[in-house]
């Protein structure tokens, strides 16, 4: 522990060079903590990194499509029209129509809500469960750490997609089960990150100080240590959202999970795939592009999210 403190001291000293060499920092008026400084900080993160800005813009579009989808789409996503089957993209049908004459654009927009819902709820579940397991294991160690660690190793030993397939096949073909399956295969990532981040701070000075202030172990863990693990967890969340969407689409693609005629990106790609050979590329192409953009968005958002939740990034 002495060593850790020492290294921290050294690191501090090294920081001091740049930090103290920054006279503006001390001259600036005090930022009043609270909403305004948080917003200013988020604005700074977005402004300083254009990639983050783009990814947040795309994310905003996706959320907009998910919320407003049913009110803005030009056609009913389920209404077939035998007069206009397999039409190529046109002004009337931006992304063309499918074999039943349904408007691909409308179906894609409507599908956003379902795909986002599956991804966010699965990630939220695995974040909560993984964080609790990992934090407890990292803080208390001992038999709980050993057992949870081995269980996690066991989950990781399966090819994750196959495991998800098995879970959905066993539990039944419903949206909830896709969420549970996606959550279970993602728990290990959160548990491991949380365990590591909690473990390295278990003996930090501020943790001892919190104990001296009368906090019991659970309070120390939940209020003092865990929030410090958030920045790397945010990166994990963002990457995981992308995986979760891919995972849900993948399950639907192979016929597990969401069933037609419900619009969902994975099913649409699956259904469209058979028409690619005959030249009707737009059926699979547009949902595929959406899937790719969604995953890309979440991957790019990670860094920005981390910087936003990390107070040390503020000046």
């Amino acid at each position: 522990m002495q060593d850790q403190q020492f290294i921290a001291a050294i690191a501090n000293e090294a920081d001091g060079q740049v930090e103290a060499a920054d006279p503006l920092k001390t001259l600036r008026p005090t930022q009043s903590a609270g909403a305004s400084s948080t917003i200013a900080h988020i604005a700074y993160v977005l402004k300083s990194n254009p990639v983050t800005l783009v990814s947040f813009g795309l994310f905003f579009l996706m959320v907009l499509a998910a919320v407003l989808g049913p009110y803005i789409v030009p056609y009913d996503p389920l209404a077939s029209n035998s007069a206009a089957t397999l039409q190529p993209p046109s002004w009337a049908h931006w992304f063309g129509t499918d074999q039943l004459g349904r408007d691909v654009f409308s179906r894609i927009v409507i599908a956003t809500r379902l795909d986002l819902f599956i991804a966010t709820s699965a990630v939220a579940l695995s974040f909560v469960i993984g964080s609790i397991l990992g934090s407890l294991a990292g803080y208390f160690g001992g038999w709980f750490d050993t057992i949870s660690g081995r269980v996690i190793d066991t989950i990781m030993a399966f090819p994750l997609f196959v495991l998800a397939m098995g879970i959905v096949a066993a539990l039944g073909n419903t949206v909830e089960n896709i969420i549970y399956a996606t959550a279970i295969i993602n728990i290990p990532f959160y548990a491991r990150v949380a365990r590591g981040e909690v473990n390295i701070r278990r003996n930090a000075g501020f943790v001892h100080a919190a104990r001296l202030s009368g906090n019991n172990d659970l309070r120390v863990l939940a209020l003092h240590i865990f929030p410090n693990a958030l920045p790397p967890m945010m990166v994990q969340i963002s990457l995981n959202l992308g995986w979760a969407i891919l995972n849900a689409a993948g399950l639907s693609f192979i016929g597990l999970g969401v069933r037609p005629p419900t619009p969902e990106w994975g099913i649409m790609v699956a259904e469209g795939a058979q028409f690619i050979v005959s030249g009707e590329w737009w059926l699979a192409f547009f949902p595929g592009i959406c899937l790719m953009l969604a995953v890309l968005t979440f991957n790019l958002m990670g860094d920005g999210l981390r910087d936003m939740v990390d107070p040390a990034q503020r000046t």
Partner: protein
Amino acid sequence: MSNPVDIDETHRPALVRVDQLGVSFATRNGVVEAVSNVSFEVANGETLGIVGESGSGKSVTSYALMRILDRAGRISAGQMTYSSIDLVNASEREMRDLRGREISMIFQNPRMALNPIRRVGDQISDVLTQHAQAIGAEARAKSIELLKTVKIRDAEARYNAYPFELSGGMCQRVVIALALACRPRLLIADEPTTGLDVTTQKTVMELIVELTRARGMSTILITHDLGLAASYCDRIIVMKDGEIVEANKTDALFASPKHPYTRNLIRATPRLDSRIRDLLPEDLAIAALPKRDTQLQATSPILEVTSLIKTFSPTDTRRPGWLSNLIGDNPAVRSDAQRAVDNISFSIPAGGSVGLVGESGCGKSTTSSIIMRLLEPTSGSVKLSGVELTGVPMKSFARSAYRAQLQMVFQDPTDSLNPRFTARRVIEDPIRMLGSDEDRKSITSRVDEVAERVSLPIDLLNRFPHQLSGGQKARVGIARAIALSPKLLILDEPTAALDVSVQAVVLNLLHDLRTDLGMSYLFVSHDLNVVRLLCDDVLVMQAGRIVEQGSADEVLASPQSSYTQTLIDAIPHPPPLYAA
């Protein structure tokens, strides 16, 4: 501002010449000048000290000289030459050749400077091979020779040691061996002894001086410790905010410091005869030191520690597995238990302050953790105002009534503040958890009051730790500890990570708080000289035992144990205070 008076009368040819150097860093708030207008020369065989507090630009200057600034940094102005080689415009390839062969550097933390997964001998051989000095068996032989030069005993065996197998002092010797491997002509030592014990510091510094003298090398010693620089340097440059404020020969600098900053720095460096108020800048209004209350000893002790023992048995961490039990090879049985604290007893009078001094690993931190109830003792008793504390289980002690009476100020102000809490929330925490209902109702005003007591400006309370300076962070830590008006405060090297001038202010603050609030202190430190300033009594600890105890002045004036004598001798002494 900084036109150093050239007082080098010896006319030794200059090895290094730095002229009007400026270094700037690109930061979030625009370009910041970290160093500006710095000029100095280092003559052949001379030892130059660059002294300054954190942020003074002393390390940046040396990094610029080696051209190892990080990406955000840029040499924005000036000339640097090393024996007629232009260092500013030299190509990266030329610089690579110079580094290690002509100019080498010793870094702050020896453990971080060594590759943890390579044998130390191989790391020295690498440097020799890199600069085409020797290869293969010859490199090995030369490396062993170097290890012997830096006085590592049993050098052949140590060649195969990994850094983690060596102590901090030994690691620093290996780093010195690395730096000297190619017989460079200039050695830059950047805080070479920070983090080492005083006795180790002394041996390491003497080794550096001895070796560089023998080889006729020039040395630039970068340090925050004026006492250290005074003991080993021919000339000293004092830097502040990226500029040179004063440059002079060591004796002359101490005899007649010209710049007020230098004066304050000299004052703030504790010496054997200085009192706590002497450390503060001259112009600060100094309240008279209250007379020491000699009646203290008569009152009942606030803390009584009797025959305290803490054993760290290897079995605690490495339980024998079923396999080793089965085959009868039980490592836990064979290895001996280590006694970190070996049967110590002492007491602290109410309102008194006692220093616990010793080098790293002597058990002083273990002792303070046990008293704090952060660690369970193996046996022994700890009584706070006559009440046995070891009887309360550690788990329920968090909410015990005694928790509030027993608080601590931690060693590293950065490490001990939660990076996600604002200063206000840090100070609030103990009040919220352990304070009286009354305190909790008026928590905002209570925090303001405590902050005022430690002279922390109220508007800083909404900042996060990384937005505060080291001294401000230390104040937050002290404010948190005194928020509940504890009876006993344990100070675990509270100033070890601070600059001397900040240390001076913090020590005085602590001194005043004790008088005002009637607290008792247990001051844990490795620095006898600092302990003396704040404490009435001292306990000297070595290898888990108390080897000497008595009043601070007596112990320093006439130490009874040889270990205490060694500790005192190792403290670097700045020349006597200039005539004010």
